[in-house]
Structures are given as C-alpha cells and as structure tokens.
C-alpha cells in the first residue's frame, strides 16, 4: 500500500526531471509518467479509504523540523479527487503543450505542484503542512505568471498576497492549537483538542475559515480567483480550479470538523450563510462575465459555496446530535467536491482547447464553433449540463443530496438553523437557475449561431490527446451521475470518520433511499425511462406523422436580405436583463455619450460603455491598502536625508532610554 505512494512520488519526480531534460523536444513522455503516477496515487487513495490511518513516513532532523506524513480516510478521499483530475490533465497536456514556449519548465512545475498538493493532504504535523501548503502556493504562483506578461504578473501578485494573508491566519491558528494542546502533530492535537476552552475553539474556527477560505475562495476572499485562474495555462487552471481550491476545503474539514469536532450550532449556521452568499454572488458574477475562463473561475466560487452548504448543514445537524443526517449532509458536501473537481476540470480543459484554437478568451469573438470543433463542443456541453445540476449527470445528485440535507436541517432545534437552512436551499435554487442561464450563454454564444470574428472562423478541432483527456472526465461525469450509490459507498469511510459514526449510505439497486425524508432518487431509472420514452416517441411520431419531409432554408430574417453575425445576440446582450434587474448587486458603470452635429436634432454618433467593477475591490480591499500605504508614506518622512535629524534620533533615543528605562 505504501509502495504505491512511493511509486507515485518516484514517477512524479521522474516526470519533473524528464520534462526538464527534454525541455523543448517532445515531452509527452514526462506527462505519461505523471499520468501513471496519478494512477498509482488513485490506487493509494482507494486503499487508504478502506484502511485504518497509516503513518507513511517521518523524517526528523531537528525538533523544530520533522516531516511527518500520515494518511487516513479523509486524505484518501482527497488524494482520489486530486488523482482523477491529474490523470486526465496530464494526458491532455501532451497535446496542449505542443509548440509552447519553455514547456519543459511548465511540466516540471506541474509535477511539483501536484506533489505538493498530495503532500498537503498527507501531512501529519504542523510544520509539514505549512511547508507543503506554501510550496503549493508558490509553485502555483509561478504557474499563474508563467507567461511573464504584465497582466498575469498583476494577477499573480493578487493571488500571492491573498494566499499569504491566508497563511498568516493558518500559522496563527496552528500555533494557538500548539500552545493549548502542546502537540505539533495532528494526531496529538486531535487527541488533546477535546478539552480546549470554547473561546480558543471559536478563535481557531474563525481563523480556519479565513485562512483556508482564502484558498477555497469564499466570498469576499475570492477576489484572487477570477484573476489567477484565467492567467494560468488552461491545463493548470483546470488543476487549480478543479483541485487546488478543494485543498482549502480539506483544510477546513481537517481543522474544524476533524480536529475541533462537534462545535456550537452557530458554527454550522455561519458556514451555511457563507456558503449561500458565496454561491449566489459567485454565479451572479459568472453570469455577466464575457471572458470564458473568468466565467468558469467565478463558477468555481459558486460551487465552493454549494460544498460549504453541505458541510455547514452537516455541522449543524451534528451539533444537534442528528449524526445520521449529518453524515448524509457531509456526503453531499464531499460528493459535490468530487463532482465539481470532475466537471470543472472538464470545463476548463475544453475552454482551454477553445482558447488554444481561437486564440481569444472573449466570448463575443467566438460563435458557430460546434461545426468546427464538434467533439470539444460535445464535451463542453456535458460539462455544462453537469455543472447546471441537470438530471442524470453528476452535479445533479450532489445538489439533490444538498437539498435533502438542508431540508432535514429543519429538524434542528434553534430558530436560526431553521431559518438558515431553507433560505440556504432557496439560495441553492437561485444559483442553480442562474447557473443554467450562465451556461446557456457559455455554451450557446461560442458554439452556436454564426462565427462572430476571424478567430472563430479559423478554429479547428484540437489534437487527440486533448480530446482523450476531456473524454475521460466527460465519461466520469456520466458515470458519477448514474451510479451515485457505488461511488458514495467508495468514500463513505471518509464520511464516517468525519461524521464520527459508522455509516452506510442508504442506496441499493441504483436507488438512493433517504429513509428520514422518505425521498428516493434513481438517476438510472430516469435514464432508462427516458430511453424507453424516446423509442416510444419515435414510433408515435412515425404513426401520426408518417414519413418526414425536411428542407433547408436560411433563418427567418424578417425579410431583410440576409442575416449577418452582428445581428445575433451577443453574450452581453444575452445577460443584459440580469444587469438591469440586479443593478443593486452589480453596480454596473454605464455611460452613454452622444456626439451631435447640431444639438439636439442631428446625432453624429452614440458610444455606449457598460462595465462591472467587482464591489469587493472597490469597497473592501482598496480602502485597506490605501490606509496602509498612507501610514507608510507618513513614516517615510523619518528618513529625510538630514544627518542632523539622524543624530537627533540617537540623542532622543538615549535620553528616552535614560529617562524611562534606567
């Protein structure tokens, strides 16, 4: 079992070195190595899920610096998640990195990035966790700024700064834990965490939410996400968005749920509220976004919110002693984590091949690509259907479970939980509907209709490895959607160790049966029914309508000569109603300026601009930074260049010391 771990590590390191060696030459070999490494880790994860916690290895040089790697079911689950995405991403990268500038370094960084993520979820003590965590952050920073342009440098700066602020909180909470438990390793901390004073627990909880939430991208700490993910190469963005932010979720689970254990009810309620806000705001910004990768990044924010809804509900239920239900809620959270990893990975990969072949991220310049890139279009469609949580794809099942647990949350005692839960459900419904709107745009505008620019007309289908990479994930979307029972059974040990009870997921023969709410769901049955009805429908049509006659004409153009691409609805127009209706949220900056030849009769031209500046930067972050900068400018006056002043400092220091210190 441990051998798989070592094998995987060796393979990844080999991949890293290999990609450095054949730097510019074909480095498919390196990616094959990494993908096999991912397979090894996947097996390792599965084995971990079905075994008691194992200590993998521990190297100790000095008391302050000892590396301890331990694996339990929780880390097993996350290893599985990471490996799934990694596998297809590495296959995709074989084709994606062809003809890319210094791709060797890219491959190297990618391998290190993945290793560091594995290290985070496996690390067994504070220092190991911190080092792996920061390695992950730094490597991903370098991946974000990979094309050394001004713009991505800015994105990278925002990312690096925010993630470091997060780390500050993480360090603080770890040291507080250490101070009160006297242990540096998580096992010891967990053992001793039982008798922490409540105030300390609360502080740790808040710090964990801020620290790990920054990485996970909860509102309002998400602002780095829509900057950094688009800036990175697409295979990387699919790793970052699909997996790395989940590591933040892992941190929250590890500290809050696993170590702190069952807390007061308001913790869970707080997380539910955070999740609701995050999901709604995330998808709202996604809907009005024109840059396809930024759109997907905002969608990740939304899904993090949904995951948090599940986790928070489970915490509330646990603190009310309803462990079975809390386990189901946790299942919802974890399952959505897995699902989001899969379909967001898929979406970013297919968006990557869109950008790769059209050389633009702007939706307005695409169009009609379904004819030029049929397979990519198909995979993107599957991804969209899954992320919209439409039936018999994977997103649907986890969101359904989330709904169920939110409803069962009503059995909690306190009124806040009772209110929070259904409103969280409403938020979930709202964001679900918005997701549908968002992805109607995200699929419809680039793929359907007529090409809107030469970028779109010049596009061509991406190479085989890229398609294979996407196909794997697309298939997973379907499988995870149709056979939820089996998948959940696979990782239910993680759920039971998080929920603290022995727990079997109630499903059999492809049917999920939640006895408490007496609700059933069977995607398999739905699928079968649909196929049956399809056949019936075909027959019916044949009977009623007889043989079909079809003919092809131009679209209905109200009688004008012919339609031009500019007559189509643009992405902006498609979502303009949202901008109008939710003005209070978006605070859009609209200005129409019209130039007259002779006011007010003869109009020369009207120019209209409409943009959205995220409110958080404007109202939350800029004031803080301005404040700090103003202080530092004031302090700067100390060094005015006059030597007399400096001598004066010496004199004053001495006099002060003599007066007050002696």
């Amino acid at each position, binding site marked *: 079992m441990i051998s798989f771990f070592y094998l995987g590590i060796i393979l990844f390191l080999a991949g890293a070195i290999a990609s450095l060696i054949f730097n510019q030459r074909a480095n498919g070999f390196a990616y094959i190595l990494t993908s096999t490494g991912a397979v090894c880790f996947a097996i390792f994860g599965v084995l971990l899920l079905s075994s008691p916690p194992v200590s993998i290895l521990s190297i100790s040089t000095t008391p302050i610096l000892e590396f301890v790697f331990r694996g339990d079911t929780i880390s097993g689950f996350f290893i599985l998640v990471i490996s799934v995405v990694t596998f297809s991403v590495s296959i995709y990268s074989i084709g994606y990195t062809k003809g890319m500038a210094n791709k060797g370094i890219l491959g190297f960084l990618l391998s290190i990035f993945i290793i560091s993520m594995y290290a985070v979820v496996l690390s067994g003590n504070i220092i190991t966790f911190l080092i792996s965590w920061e390695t992950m952050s730094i490597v991903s920073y370098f991946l974000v700024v990979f094309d050394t342009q001004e713009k991505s440098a800015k994105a990278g700066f925002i990312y690096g700064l925010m993630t470091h602020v997060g780390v500050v909180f993480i360090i603080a909470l770890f040291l507080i834990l250490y101070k009160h438990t006297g242990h540096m390793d998580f096992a010891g901390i967990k053992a001793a965490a039982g008798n922490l004073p409540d105030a300390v627990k609360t502080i740790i909880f808040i710090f964990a939410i801020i620290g790990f939430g920054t990485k996970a991208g909860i509102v309002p700490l998400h602002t780095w996400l829509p900057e950094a993910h688009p800036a990175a190469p697409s295979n990387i963005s699919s790793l970052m968005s699909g997996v790395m932010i989940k590591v933040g979720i892992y941190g929250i689970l590890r500290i809050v749920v696993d170590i702190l254990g069952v807390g007061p009810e308001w913790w869970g309620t707080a997380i539910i509220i955070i999740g609701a806000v995050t999901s709604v705001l995330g998808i709202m910004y996604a809907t009005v976004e024109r840059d396809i990768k930024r759109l997907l990044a905002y969608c990740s924010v939304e899904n993090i919110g949904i995951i948090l809804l599940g986790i928070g509900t489970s915490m509330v239920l646990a603190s009310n002693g309803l462990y079975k239900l809390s386990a189901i809620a946790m299942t919802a959270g974890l399952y959505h984590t897995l699902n989001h990893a899969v379909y967001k990975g898929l979406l970013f990969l297919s968006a990557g091949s869109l950008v790769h072949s059209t050389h633009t991220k702007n939706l307005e310049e695409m169009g009609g690509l379904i004819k030029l890139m049929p397979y990519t279009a198909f995979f993107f469609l599957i991804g969209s259907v899954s992320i919209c949580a439409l039936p018999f794809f994977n997103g649907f099942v986890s969101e359904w479970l989330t709904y169920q647990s939110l409803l069962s949350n009503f059995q909690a005692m306190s009124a806040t939980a009772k209110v929070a839960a259904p409103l969280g459900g409403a938020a979930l419904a709202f964001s679900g509907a918005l997701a549908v709107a968002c992805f109607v745009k995200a699929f419809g505008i680039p793929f359907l209709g007529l090409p809107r620019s030469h970028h779109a007309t010049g596009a061509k289908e991406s190479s085989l490895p890229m398609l294979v990479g996407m196909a794997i994930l697309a298939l997973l979307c379907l499988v995870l959607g149709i056979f939820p029972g089996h998948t959940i059974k696979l990782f239910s040990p993680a759920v039971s160790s998080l929920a603290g009870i022995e727990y079997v997921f109630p499903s059999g023969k492809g049917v999920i049966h939640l006895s408490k709410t007496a609700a059933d769901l069977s995607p398999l049955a739905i699928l079968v029914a649909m196929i049956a009805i399809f056949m019936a429908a075909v027959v019916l049509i044949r009977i009623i309508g007889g043989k079909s006659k079809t003919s092809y004409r131009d679209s209905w153009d109200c009688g004008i000569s012919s339609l031009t691409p500019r007559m189509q609805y643009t992405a902006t127009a498609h979502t303009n109603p949202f901008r109008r209706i939710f003005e209070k949220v978006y605070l859009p900056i609209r200005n129409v300026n019209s130039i007259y030849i002779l006011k007010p009769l003869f109009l020369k031209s009207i120019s209209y601009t409409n943009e959205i500046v995220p409110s958080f930067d404007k109202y939350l972050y800029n004031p803080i930074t301005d404040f700090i900068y103003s202080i530092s400018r004031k302090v700067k006056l100390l060094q005015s260049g006059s030597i*007399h002043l400096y*001598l004066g400092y010496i004199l004053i220091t001495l*006099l002060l010391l*003599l*007066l007050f210190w002696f």
Partner: protein
Amino acid sequence: MKDWMDLLYVMDFVSIGILITAISINSLSQIEAWIKAYMINSWLLSLLIFFVAVKNPEHHLYVASTLTFASKGVLLPFFLKSIVRQMKKVQVVETYLSTSLSLIISGIIIAIVYVSLGKGIFVTGFSSFVLKISVAVILIGLFIMITRRSAIAQILGLLFMENGVFLAGFSLTFGMPSIVELGVVFDLLMIVIIMGVFMVQIKQKFSSDVADMDQLTNLKG
C-alpha cells in the same frame, strides 16, 4: 599634596570646567573659537588625568596624561586649524537654533542626565558626580553636532564626546589598561584624519566653502 586636592575639590572644579567649556560652544559662533574651546577642554582633561596620576602613583597615567595633552591638546587642534585654513573665509557658521534656545536645551539635557543617573549607581570615583558630568559632556557634544551645520563642527562635537568618554574612563576607574588607551587614542586620530579626507572630498563634490551639511540630503526615503 593629596590632602589639599581633596580639600579644595580640585577634581570637581576641573571636571566642571570641562563641562562649562563644552557648554560654552553653544554660545560661540566662530570655528576658531570652537577649536580654542576644545583645546582648553583637552588641557583640562589632561590636567585631570595628571591629578589622578598624582593621587595614585601609576606611571601609565602620567603617560596617558601627556599623551592626551599631546594628541588632543596640541596635535588635533593644529590639524583642525590647518583644515579650516584650507577652506578659506570660513569664520561664521550659522546654527539651526538660537544661542539662548540651544543653551536652554543643553541645560535640559544636563538636568535629565543628573536626574536619571541620580538613582541606583553608587560612584566610587573621587569626584562624586563625575560620571554625570562626563555623560552630560558627551550628550552636549552630540547636541552640538546636531545643531551646527558645517562638517568641521561635527568633527568638533565628536571630539568633545570623546573627551567626555575619557573623562568618565579616568575619573571612574583611575584609567584603563594602557593598551586600551593607546588603541582608543589611535582610533580617534584615524577617525579625524579620514573625516578630514572626506570633508575635502565633500568640498570638491558639493563645491561649498564650509562643507555645508544641508546639501548632503540627496539620499532619502
């Protein structure tokens, strides 16, 4: 001989003289006058060392006394005068603070020193408040450096500080091991020489007569 010294508090008078010469700088504005004041100050210092030597017969103290006289009382003033002559039409250097104000401030400094050193320390030296005086002299030297604009004023202030330190050294402990004294004096000479070098360079670079410190403010932030 020793008894009348104790009788007439010679030590105290001499050390007070050192303090006064230091303070007097505040009211002087001509560099030549400063150098004279410093010269007197150094003579008093060497005189004090001489008395210490008389009080307890240690030969290296005589050596130190003469050494101080030679270096601080003769050599350095001469060297400084020569530098001053190098840069012509030097005489007056304006200060940042008016005479009265700087006198007041130096008074405050002395007060602070007396107050804060009053507690705790017991002095076995023969002049009960010689430590306070020496610290005061040092701080006043620093104060001079702060308020005067020309480079040479800063050198002078530094030299005053050195004198204060020596005062402390000899009066508290009847002198250091002689090797230390030698080293310190040697260091002092070196500093002054190198400062002279730089002062000449400043004059060249900044083309100012008295090496005006206000021009040395290019490096800030």
